[in-house]
């Protein structure tokens, strides 16, 4: 038997990247750098800040004398505005998500049917998702303007607003100036913002239900409602959970809507954790307390992340 000749040099070079031990780390490298620099580092910094006494004017941690234990968390929690912001964050998120789930299901069902102009309608439904958040919210800000609101104009023309009308003698609703209206406005904008994504996810889920299964339900004698509640919705549940978790994260951590639309007003009534952390930490200069407020989001986000991972694992096992 002869010993095989070693492959020529250029061939070995050509297959260099076929080696998984080379290619794998190489492909992972950019993602790892990205996560460490833009997620890991700020997170660690936030935790450090939350236990320290740094301010915007003096953000350096020199030694143990800068650490103050849980003092920031105590101060933050004793602040009435913080508790309001915490409650608002939870209420806004839950209320908007309930509406999103219902509307997204209805929309997905409608859009999965065959009709003329379906593509155009799908495009229009998806549009809010493609607009930058800040611009979209600015649009709403103008629509809800205290003097020039087109909604008010339409209501006036319909006789719903103005002297001797249903919504009172004033010429304007002052959408963003009254507590309940402002809170409702924030919720509506959240719904408007997250509905498209949830709808598209559910639409994908609907089209993944095999035609045979729908046919079988038809032959088995199930009418529309029975098919909806016994076949389609149960089969959609896993994907609905994915859509909900996504929307929850987006809504829960959102800064833009409250910041642009109401700046937390009137009198902090639409303040949420992220805006309060921003006002406290950046605008107010108390970096340490801002970090502490922001960290209140963490446990919820961890819980959601675990939920997502579990779902992913379960669908892998099926």
């Amino acid at each position, binding site marked *: 038997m002869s010993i095989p000749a070693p492959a020529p040099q250029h061939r070995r070079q050509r297959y260099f990247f076929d080696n998984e031990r080379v290619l794998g780390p190489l492909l992972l490298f950019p993602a790892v750098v990205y996560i460490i620099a833009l997620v890991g580092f700020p997170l660690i910094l936030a935790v450090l800040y939350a236990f320290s006494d740094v301010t915007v004017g003096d953000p350096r941690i020199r030694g143990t004398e800068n650490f103050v234990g849980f003092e920031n968390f105590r101060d933050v929690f004793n602040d009435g505005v913080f508790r309001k912001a915490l409650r608002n964050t939870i209420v806004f998120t839950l209320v908007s998500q309930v509406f999103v789930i219902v509307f997204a299901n209805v929309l997905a069902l409608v859009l999965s049917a065959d009709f003329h102009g379906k593509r155009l309608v799908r495009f229009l439904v998806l549009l809010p998702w493609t607009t930058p958040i800040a611009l979209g919210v600015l649009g709403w800000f103008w629509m809800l303007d205290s003097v020039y609101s087109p909604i008010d104009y339409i209501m006036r023309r319909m006789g719903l607003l103005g002297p001797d009308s249903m919504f009172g003698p004033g010429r304007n609703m002052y959408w963003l100036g009254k507590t309940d209206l402002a809170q409702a406005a924030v919720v509506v904008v959240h719904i408007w913002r997250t509905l498209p994504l949830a709808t598209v996810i559910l639409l994908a889920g609907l089209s993944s239900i095999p035609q045979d*299964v729908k046919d*079988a339900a*038809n*032959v088995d004698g199930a*009418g529309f409602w*029975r098919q909806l509640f016994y*076949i389609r919705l*149960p*089969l959609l549940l896993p994907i609905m959970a994915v859509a909900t978790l996504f929307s929850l994260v987006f809504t829960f951590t959102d800064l833009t809507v409250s910041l642009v639309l109401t700046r937390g007003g009137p009198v902090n009534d639409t303040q949420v954790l992220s805006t309060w952390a921003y006002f406290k930490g950046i605008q107010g200069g108390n970096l340490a307390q801002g970090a502490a407020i922001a960290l209140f989001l963490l446990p919820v986000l961890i819980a959601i992340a675990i939920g997502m991972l579990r779902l992913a694992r379960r669908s892998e096992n099926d």
Partner: protein
Amino acid sequence: MAIVETRKITKEFDGGAVKVVKDIDIKTVDGEFLVLLGPSGCGKTTLLRMIGGLEHPTSGQILIADQVVNHLPPRARQIAMVFQSYALYPHMNVKGNIAFPLKAANIDKEEQKRRVDWAAGILGIDHLLDRKPRQLSGGQRQRVALARALVREPNVFLLDEPLSNLDAQRRASARDELQRFQHEIGTTTIYVTHDQVEAMGMGHRIAVIEGGTVRQIGTPRDIYEDPADTFVATFLGSPPMNLIPRGDELIGFRPENFHLAPDGGVDSSTSLSFKLTSIREEYLGSEKLVYGELEGERTVARMAANADVPAAEGGEVTLFVDNADLRVFDRESGLRKESAPATIATGSGS
């Protein structure tokens, strides 16, 4: 139980650009096992789906139990269907799957349970009632699908290639079970397949469909022995019928119709002789297939394994076919002609 009939039923797609089913007339006998057989894309599944109400015919009528059902939704047709994929509801257990049609019909709980147990008993799946479909094997899923179809006591069973997802071994036994099951239940059954073995083995009658039309309808024996045209002649039988051109005719005969010269010589008035040039032999145990050339045409002979036929390439042998086994087709249209042995004999040149 019921008779299913289609009258001039047609299905077009894309505004008439594609005709999938063309003017098909089929009428079952009550309690019959009718097989729709054809290559893929021939329109057999579309025909079945129209009978089931899952597709609307472009024109023509569908009758079940003497009633026109064109306008009725599937659930109003008293039919049950088994799909190629079985289409079990993945989120329900076996019990839930079988009971679903009963729930949809608002049958009371006790009766539901009784009927589910009955159907599960017939199909031998009583021990699987609490399992989810993904925990079942292909054969078990198929039985659950059958139980779900059975439980409604439908007038007609529509089966769309229900065995094609099973492995070969399991398929043979499932074929037997399915046939016995249909025999016991006695419900009119329409069964779609592209597998001629299934069709021959199971059907009371077979409708051979090609290009959206029925080429022939008859018992397995009729179809095999007296094919109506060259498509049917070559689609059924493996290997297919040999076709030898003679003038404007095609002479057809089955590979197994070849035989060696009998002991007492050959009576040329009752049989025809052919000179086969052997190309290759396939040994199958109890028999062998001899592939060769005959008057320039590729031809197959099915012989006993020990038959004295030269196996080597280029070997020549004279084989005989009884006149009674010869079928004559028009070369142009492919349609069957009345066989006339005399014509064959004079035209044979032997």
